[in-house]
Each structure stands twice: as structure tokens, then as C-alpha cells.
């Protein structure tokens, strides 16, 4: 089953429209602000997330004339912008990971009953993961977290970051190797390409 494209305008259509009717861009906000907020709240905490989402759309709006309309899906573009903005707040992100290494789980996230089973393992690993993330170079961390925490494919991650897909793979492998090293050798290693 395919959804008729006339019913739902593609992202690229909205962007094209917004060049003459700026308000059309707000539809893009309605589509993706929540998604971006969730993503960045994982990386930086909720306090700053709202502002970063707002900034992302301002930057996107300002750059809408340069968008390549052959890409129907605007998500990689938006994730690319927000990743750049996150890099400007490297200290905040670092502080967030430092806090994660110390604080008990309840302080940072709301507990969720049906996640308890997974949560136990996550809780134990949390300080280690936070330390591993904090120790990664930003470019490797950007790849790793886009792969793990967004729904983008490798190809879309490459598009978001403006690097070849091979670079995404090599950065991802390097990042995962470092994470596993921090987690210790107790975990079965599974190479994934």
C-alpha cells in the first residue's frame, strides 16, 4: 500500500513552499520538533533541549533556500543541524555525562514500570556508558548517538553529517570499540557492520 503523495506533502514540498510562504515551515516544526526534542533531551537533558530545538528550526529556516529538494525526507538535514548546535554546547554535554556518572537513575529520568526489566541492566551500566560517551571524540560520539538514538539509517547519518557512508561505518566501529573497552570484557563482543 502506498499513501498518495498528494494527501501528505513531502518535507521537500514544504521546504519549497516555505521559500515563498514562510508559514509552511511551521508544518515541518509540527512534524519533527517532538522527535528532535526527545533526541536532544537524551544528550543534554531536558532543560536546554527546548531551546536547541527552537534554534534548530531557526537555522533550518534561514538555510531553507540551500536545501536540496531531491531529498524528500528532511530528518537527516534537521539532525545534522541539531548535531552542530550540540557541538557548540560541548561543556553542557560533558557536564551532563559527568552528572550521569554520579547520580542515581531516579534523579535524571522518570521511572517507568514496564522498563524495569531492561532498566536494571541499564542502571548498572549507566555510569560506565556515561564515562565512555564522555571520553569519545565529538565526531565519533555524533555518529554513535545518531545511530543508536535516532531512527536514521547509516546512509541518512552520513547525509546528516555530510560525510561519506564509509566514514560513518569507521567512526561507528571505533566508537563502539571504545565503549566496549570501558564496559569491560564481560560482554560478548559482536561486531556489526
Amino acid at each position, binding site marked *: 500500500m502506498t499513501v498518495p503523495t498528494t494527501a501528505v506533502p513531502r518535507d521537500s514540498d514544504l521546504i519549497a513552499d516555505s521559500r515563498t510562504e*514562510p*508559514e509552511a515551515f511551521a508544518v515541518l516544526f509540527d512534524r519533527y520538533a517532538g522527535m528532535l526534542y*526527545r533526541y536532544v533531551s537524551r544528550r543534554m537533558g531536558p532543560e*536546554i533541549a527546548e531551546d536547541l530545538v527552537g534554534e534548530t528550526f531557526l537555522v533550518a529556516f534561514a538555510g531553507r533556500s540551500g536545501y536540496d529538494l531531491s531529498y524528500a525526507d528532511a530528518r537527516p538535514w534537521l539532525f545534522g543541524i541539531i548535531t552542530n548546535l550540540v557541538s557548540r554546547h560541548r*561543556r*553542557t554535554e560533558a557536564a551532563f555525562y559527568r552528572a550521569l556518572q*554520579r*547520580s542515581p537513575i531516579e534523579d535524571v529520568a522518570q521511572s517507568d514500570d514496564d522498563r524495569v526489566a531492561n532498566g536494571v541492566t541499564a542502571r548498572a551500566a549507566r555510569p560506565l556508558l556515561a564515562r565512555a560517551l564522555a571520553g569519545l571524540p565529538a565526531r565519533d560520539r555524533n555518529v554513535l548517538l545518531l545511530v543508536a538514538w535516532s531512527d536514521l539509517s547509516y546512509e541518512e547519518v552520513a547525509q546528516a553529517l555530510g560525510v561519506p557512508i564509509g566514514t560513518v561505518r569507521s567512526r561507528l566501529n571505533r566508537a563502539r570499540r571504545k565503549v566496549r573497552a570501558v564496559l569491560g570484557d564481560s560482554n560478548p563482543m559482536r561486531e556489526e557492520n
Partner: protein
Amino acid sequence: MDDLTMLRDLGRTLEHEPPPSLVRQRQRLLEGARPHHRLPRLMRGWALIGLAAVVTAAAIVVPVLILHPRSAQVAVNQPDPAKPIKELNLLVLGVDRRRPIADGKADPEGARSDTVMLVHLPADRKKVTVVSLPRDLMVLIPPCKGLEGETIPTHLGLINSAFTDGGSSCSAKTVESITGIRIDHVMEVEFGGLKRMVDALGGIEITLPQAVRDRDSGLDLPAGRHLVQGDQALAYVRTRHSLGDGSDLSRIERQQQFLLAMFKKVRPVLADPIRLPVLLHESSKAIKISPGLDAQAMFDIARSLAQVESRDIRSITVPWRPYPPDPNRVEMKQPSADKLFAGLGGTPPKKAGKKAR
């Protein structure tokens, strides 16, 4: 479990749902879609002002803008006919209306002025001086009208008890009598309101040298940098037992730093058409000025300060020394305190230096 799965699990525990306030960012986008207005010069000037500006910015500019949201831009564009600028002394009181629970003695109002600052703006507005008066400062409180209309005779007491006894007018009278400086306006800033202002700003970043767990103020945070919101922010400026050397004096320092951090946070908000009204609204609820200032007067003050830069602001604590009868209290150190006040145009009474001994 492999590392990616663990990472995804971690991500889920960290994730927050978008708050309803995210809609403000949509507004921001729509605003951004329109041609940009240049930031009024007054506001850019504010960006350079330090602590005193926080106090005065919050207290002065903000109400102006509430009364006349567009007036700032209009008025800045048309230079005012040279109007004589007068010297101005403002007394800023941080008022805490919590009812004390653990306190043994009854406190009918439950209101205390835990922060007392004198802001001196000379006529040329070249320098701004902010003098903090520790709340544990023992001073001679002149006769005041009590809250029930009774007259409270002159007595020796803590400076902040003047507020509890007779409200802001008694605080002003006390400060006038010990400094010899005429107070033009008193600004009461409510701690509870401060909390809402901090929230409207999206939190304030603080740095803790060590983990803090303070039962009295409810502050419980690990060491490091934190973005504090409402209650935590309030606890941070209130706490005194678990930070610094536990004295009110180290708390004053912390409050000054906090206000500076707050001011830095205000800067971008001033340019943000969505967040500014929220901040303004909260600020107006948090600040009470007496005797009141009309919009023009407030605006004139604000404008006269627009050229002041942070290096022109002197922020000091009144010279003090331990109060011999009670080591938990302090008294003004003479003659340096009187010298300071004289430098600000005050004529401290001769006996002022002796009364607290």
C-alpha cells in the same frame, strides 16, 4: 547484551517527552520568519551591565516594558531632551515570606529580608556601587511604626529584623540612619518570585565545588555544574550551612554570583519576543517598588544606566568585623564603613560607629 542495545536502553531512560512549552519555539520560528527588528540600544547596553543591573534591570526596566511594551524602542529612537539626572539610591531587599517552622519564637508575618543591598547611582551614572549589608549585621534600629501601628522604640538589633518589625519603610529608615544616605526607593524582591523568574529563564547554571545536601534549604546536588530551576535555585541562594564557610557572608557572595549568572541568562531573552513577555510577567509579580515609580521615571533611570558597563560596577560588602558579644553576628568596622558611606554622599551620624559596640 551488546553495547548498542545497552546504549539504546540508556537513551530510553534519559529521554524526556516534549513539554507543552515547546510551542513557544514554534512561535519563535514564526517570529523569526518575519523580518528582524534591531535590538533597541537600551537593551544592548544592558548586556554589558553586571550585578547592579540585574537588580535594577529586573526592578526598573522590566516594569517599564510591561507597562509600555513598545515604549522602549520608540523612546530610544527619539533622544530625550536633556533632562537633569539626579543621584539615586535604591535599597534592594530580598524578601522571604516563608513561615519559619523550626523557629522557636512566633513570627507573625513570617517575612524576612534576608538580602539587603544598597545600590548607589551617582548623578553622572559613571560608576554604580552595590553595597551588601549582611543580614547578621547588628545595628541601631530607629523608632519605627510596627505592623499593627504600634511604635517600636530605638533598639539594637539585626538589620533584617527591621523589616520584620516595620516592613520596607523601617528597613529604609534603618539603612538611612546608619549610612546617612537618603534612600529614594525600596525594591522588595520576593524569593518566591525569583524562583518563577528563574523558571521563566529556563534555569540558571551554577557550579558546586562539592556535593551539597542541606536539610534546611532542601538543596541536594552532586558537585559540578548544574542547571538549577525554581526550587533548587531558591535553595541555592538560601542555603548557608552546606556551602562556603557556612556564614551569611559567603552566601552573599553566592547570591551575587547567582544574580550575575541570571543576568547572563537574561541577555538572550531580551531579544526573544516569545520568552521576554513571560519573564516580564514573572518579574513584575516578584518586585514591589515603594514609593512607586511611574513609567517615565523608571524608563529614565533605565536609560541613564544604559551606558554603564560591568567594569563600572563596584560590588562590595560593608566593612565588618565580628560582634564581640556574639561571634555569630557582625558589626560595621569603623572608620572604614563610615568612609565608604561618606564616599557615596552619605553623612553617617557620629555615633553610628559606636552604637553596636
